[in-house]
């Protein structure tokens, strides 16, 4: 096996023990890398009884097989474990610069258990791995600590850092690479915080990796890079960022407004779309390592209440979650909110979703001034959101901060009201794509996704837009977004592609240009897996299945493959107004096609055996 090093760093923070483990090659050829390989490691070594924030909990960082290759879109890594937000399987993909550096240092990943007695950081310099004291950084912002670490160790060192929210065990806290590339979803910042681990700092002395077939891999890389860069979607993303098509999404009914009570806000379409950000606050563009798309924004808001110095700008998810979702069309405020959330170490999607829920609860009288500590929660009141609510959440301060730090599903449960208008699957707040307008297939994949409502677990969102076409494997569906037609059928392939994407840690924006023959060529010339199309797709689907088995062992069943009432009620306005989603029909058909048990929500024993998962089947059947 090439590209992958086969080595992971195993850290037990309780004992201060560091070992280098070698993984069996079969783990890679069966589970690819990234979140798939992390799931396999968790399956084999994880403590299924351990609470996510207990010392026994396992936190996994894992590269994909292409990390280190100078190819657009592959410089991502996956973080995984049991999510403190949902209690189920969680994984989160992060771009930036950590993944290639880890590969060059000689490792495919890290597995961290235990709890350090005092605040600590992990320093990795090739084969030297040390646990250092980090008391001086504890309590400080993630962005600030990133800068301090760069000053101490050098600019070439790559960092993963948590903010105060992670230290305070906010259930949706993030881990940031280079101070702004976020491991955003599922609350892994809180796991780092629970282990007293403030940061991981990394530098490799050499920048090389091995390849199974260097000549062919290089030829493919040279072919793919310009194709990815010059694709229409890439040019649009480069020009106007991930919010480039917010305007189109608004007219389609894809953009959630005021806690998903509306699907159309004409003024917001123009005010918040990517080209407006370009024309107002953009100073330059930036990228993850080796990526020619460069969809990242660098912005400066020169004056006004939301003035921010030049620095990382908001992506689509932040623009909507701190925009229309909470009743605001103030683009400058989203720039500020993104910066504040980064430094505090909070996921903007879950934060926006939880605050939007709280605003509706306050409007309905389900949350009172007594519950909020005297804070009025009003749609679009960005001053209160940015200057009061978000800091209270990060600090778990006061009744409101303590309540909202748990996320919307737990908060509704705690007050015994408002569950009907939460917006999540399996406890993970939904991203800023409303399946009622964005596509009914998205409702299905939100519900059956292992970590909960997620638009990047698989490419269903893109498939329903018409941007996924794999004729070599018969995926030629012309999907109409606002129907259930062929959605379950498409999902069978889509989850396999999602397994490939998230296990190879390939960015969905970049891999849109990667054809099935390209994927096979990449796997065969970079790590040398020796696959054909069938074996490759089986690996992708196997990853999906394994995550379901893990969730089953956490007590999840078919009842958990669902969406909340608010998400399934017909839209009240906009393009999708009045249209029902045939959710149960799609779900039943998907279970049938994937031969999943209708109660346990895992594949039947025969399917698991067919996928080479006989040992796993023995545990669950």
């Amino acid at each position, binding site marked *: 096996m090439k590209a992958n090093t086969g080595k992971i760093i195993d850290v037990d923070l309780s004992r201060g023990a560091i070992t280098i483990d070698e993984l069996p090659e079969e783990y890679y050829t069966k589970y690819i890398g990234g979140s798939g390989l992390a799931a396999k490691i968790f399956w084999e070594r994880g403590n299924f009884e351990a609470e996510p924030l207990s010392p026994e909990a396992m936190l996994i960082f894992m590269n994909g097989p292409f990390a280190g290759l100078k190819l657009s879109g592959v410089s991502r890594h996956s973080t995984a474990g049991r999510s403190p937000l949902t209690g189920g399987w969680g994984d989160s993909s992060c771009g930036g610069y950590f993944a290639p550096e880890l590969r060059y240092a000689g490792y495919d990943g890290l597995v961290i258990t235990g709890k350090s007695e005092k605040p600590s950081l992990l320093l990795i310099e090739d084969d030297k791995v040390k646990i250092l004291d980090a008391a001086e950084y504890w309590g400080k912002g993630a962005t600030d600590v990133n800068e301090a670490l760069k000053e101490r160790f050098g600019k070439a060192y790559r960092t993963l850092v948590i903010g105060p929210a992670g230290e305070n065990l906010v259930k949706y806290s993030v881990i940031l690479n280079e101070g702004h590339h976020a491991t955003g979803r599922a609350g892994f910042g809180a796991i780092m915080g629970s282990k007293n681990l403030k940061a991981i700092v990394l530098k490799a002395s050499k920048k090389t990796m091995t390849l199974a077939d260097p000549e062919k891999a290089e030829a493919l890389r040279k072919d793919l890079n310009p194709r990815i860069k010059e694709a229409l979607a890439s040019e*649009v993303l480069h020009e106007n960022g991930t919010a480039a098509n917010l305007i189109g999404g608004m007219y389609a009914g894809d953009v959630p407004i005021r806690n998903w009570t509306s699907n159309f806000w004409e003024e917001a379409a123009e005010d918040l779309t990517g080209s407006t950000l370009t024309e107002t606050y953009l100073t330059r563009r930036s990228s993850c390592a080796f990526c020619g798309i460069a969809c990242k924004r660098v912005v400066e808001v020169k004056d006004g209440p939301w003035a921010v110095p030049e620095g990382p700008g908001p992506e689509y998810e932040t623009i909507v979650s701190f925009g229309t979702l909470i009743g605001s069309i103030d683009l400058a405020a989203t720039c500020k909110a993104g910066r504040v959330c980064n430094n505090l170490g909070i996921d903007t999607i879950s934060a926006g979703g939880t605050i939007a829920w709280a605003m509706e609860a306050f409007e309905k009288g389900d949350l009172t001034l007594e519950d909020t500590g005297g804070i009025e929660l009003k749609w679009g009141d960005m001053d209160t959101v940015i200057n009061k609510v978000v800091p209270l959440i990060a600090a778990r301060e006061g009744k409101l901060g303590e309540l909202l730090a748990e996320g919307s599903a737990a908060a509704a449960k705690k007050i015994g009201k408002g569950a009907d208008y939460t917006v999540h699957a399996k406890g993970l707040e939904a991203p800023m794509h409303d399946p009622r307008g964005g596509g009914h297939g998205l409702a299905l994949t939100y519900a059956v996704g292992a970590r909960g409502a997620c638009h990047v677990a698989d490419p269903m969102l893109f498939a329903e837009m*018409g941007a996924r076409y794999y004729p070599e494997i018969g995926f030629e569906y012309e999907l109409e977004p606002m129907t259930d037609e062929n959605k379950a059928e498409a999902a069978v392939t889509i989850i396999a592609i999602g397994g490939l994407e998230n296990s190879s840690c390939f960015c969905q924006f970049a891999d849109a240009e990667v054809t099935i023959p390209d994927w096979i060529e990449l796997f065969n010339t970079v790590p040398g897996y020796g696959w054909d199309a069938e074996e490759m797709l089986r690996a992708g689907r196997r990853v999906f299945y394994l995550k379901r088995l893990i969730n089953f062992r956490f007590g999840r069943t078919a009842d958990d493959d669902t969406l909340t009432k608010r998400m399934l009620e017909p839209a009240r306005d906009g393009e999708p107004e009045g249209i029902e989603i045939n959710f149960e029909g799609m779900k039943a058909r998907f279970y049938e096609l994937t031969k999943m048990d209708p109660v346990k929500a895992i594949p039947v024993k025969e399917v698991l055996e067919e996928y080479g998962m006989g040992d796993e089947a023995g545990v669950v059947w």
Partner: protein
Amino acid sequence: MEYWKDANEPIEAFVKLFEKGFKDPDLSGGLKKVNQLIWFDYTQDGPDCSFWVDCRGGELKTGPGKPDDEPNLTMSLSADDAHRSWSNKLNPVMAITRKKIRVKGSATGLLKLAPKLKKVAVLYVETLKELGRDDIIL
């Protein structure tokens, strides 16, 4: 061609469609924001089968053939797919993914027009009726 008798017929319809669009305040406002010279290239259906729309400098113009200036954006497709597109019966993203539409140049401005395709389709139906081509209305 499935819908057109000759290469001149679609161009006449499309130029007329844009001339109508220029008179619509909403569409003309949107087109001015695009601020590009666009060449709609259907030459796969005949050397003269193309037209241009000039949205630069706050003025709107259109005409048959290739523009004299170098276009900022070229969209190449068949005249039949163009008919489906102006009828709002062709998913542009899907068409681009399947290489039915090839784009050269920056299409970011056109994204702003995407929400207005429904309105364009209404004008297109009117145009086809005026040209006596009710038979190809989709």
